[in-house]
């Protein structure tokens, strides 16, 4: 049985991969969300801030426009627990910058070039994510 979410997942995944391919072959940049965002936030992008700023503008505006045009509903279904949201955000931001990458940089761009760093990072964050969900959902019942 093929779920429709698999088809959308594959289609959306191909779009993500094409976006990364476009940035690599066009501008010679690795499409890592945490690197692009973090470089602007901590100033490490230095002279090259226009590219990251425009990338982020597109990243925010395109889903907004798509929802506006199609009239489809979108929801993150995120928790409304402010402690969980803030703790999770801090961990994601800190961890991704320490690791020099997140799901897009290490996961998509790293694995596709068979980088040991990308593969190692992906194995470890999947492991930590799995343990966290198991602990906070099934043991503690918080999420």
């Amino acid at each position, binding site marked *: 049985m093929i*779920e429709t979410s*698999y088809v959308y997942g*594959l289609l*959306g*995944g191909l*779009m*993500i*991969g094409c*976006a990364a391919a476009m*940035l690599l072959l066009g501008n*010679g940049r*690795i*499409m890592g*969300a945490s690197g692009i*965002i*973090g470089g602007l936030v*901590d100033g490490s992008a230095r002279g090259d801030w*226009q*590219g990251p700023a*425009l990338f982020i*503008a*597109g990243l*925010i*505006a*395109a*889903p*907004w426009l798509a929802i506006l045009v199609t009239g489809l509903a979108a929801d*993150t279904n*995120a*928790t409304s627990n*402010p402690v969980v949201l*803030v*703790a*999770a955000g*801090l*961990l994601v*931001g*800190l*961890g*991704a*910058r*320490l*690791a020099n990458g*997140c799901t*897009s940089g*290490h996961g998509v761009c790293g694995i*596709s070039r068979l980088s*040991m*760093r990308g593969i*190692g*990072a*992906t194995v*470890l*964050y*999947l492991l*930590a*994510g799995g343990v*966290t969900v198991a602990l906070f959902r*099934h043991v503690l019942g918080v*999420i």
Partner: protein
Amino acid sequence: MRGLISLLSGGLFGLGLLVSGMTDTTRVQGWLDIFGAWDPTLAFVLGGAILPMAVAWRVAARRAAPLVGGAFPPPPSGGITPRLAIGSLIFGAGWGLAGLCPGPAFASLSFGGWEGLAFAAAMLAGMLLAVPAKRIGRVAA
């Protein structure tokens, strides 16, 4: 031209995240929830994203330079360092806790409500915390 490519790439990335379900925290947490109602959708997302990018790396290896100038990124160096391992574990814990990572957090800003804004603000603060954390790590090492 560089700016246009950045804008279009960011836009396509955002649409892909929306279409694939990566901006839906129930899908992400469903994928990580191996002891619950496991949702394999994210395997299709990652697989779909790796395919065109694997082709792109092969094309890049045969070209001297990117289309609009500059240089291709150097090969990954340093191997799996303690910082990479610790950072990835911290990142994964946060990803599991809320079901959001940096790309989807920004792609969903227009419809994610105050929850999305709170997560994104905390994420930016976490990114700033990484600057002194790296310095402490260097001193310790």
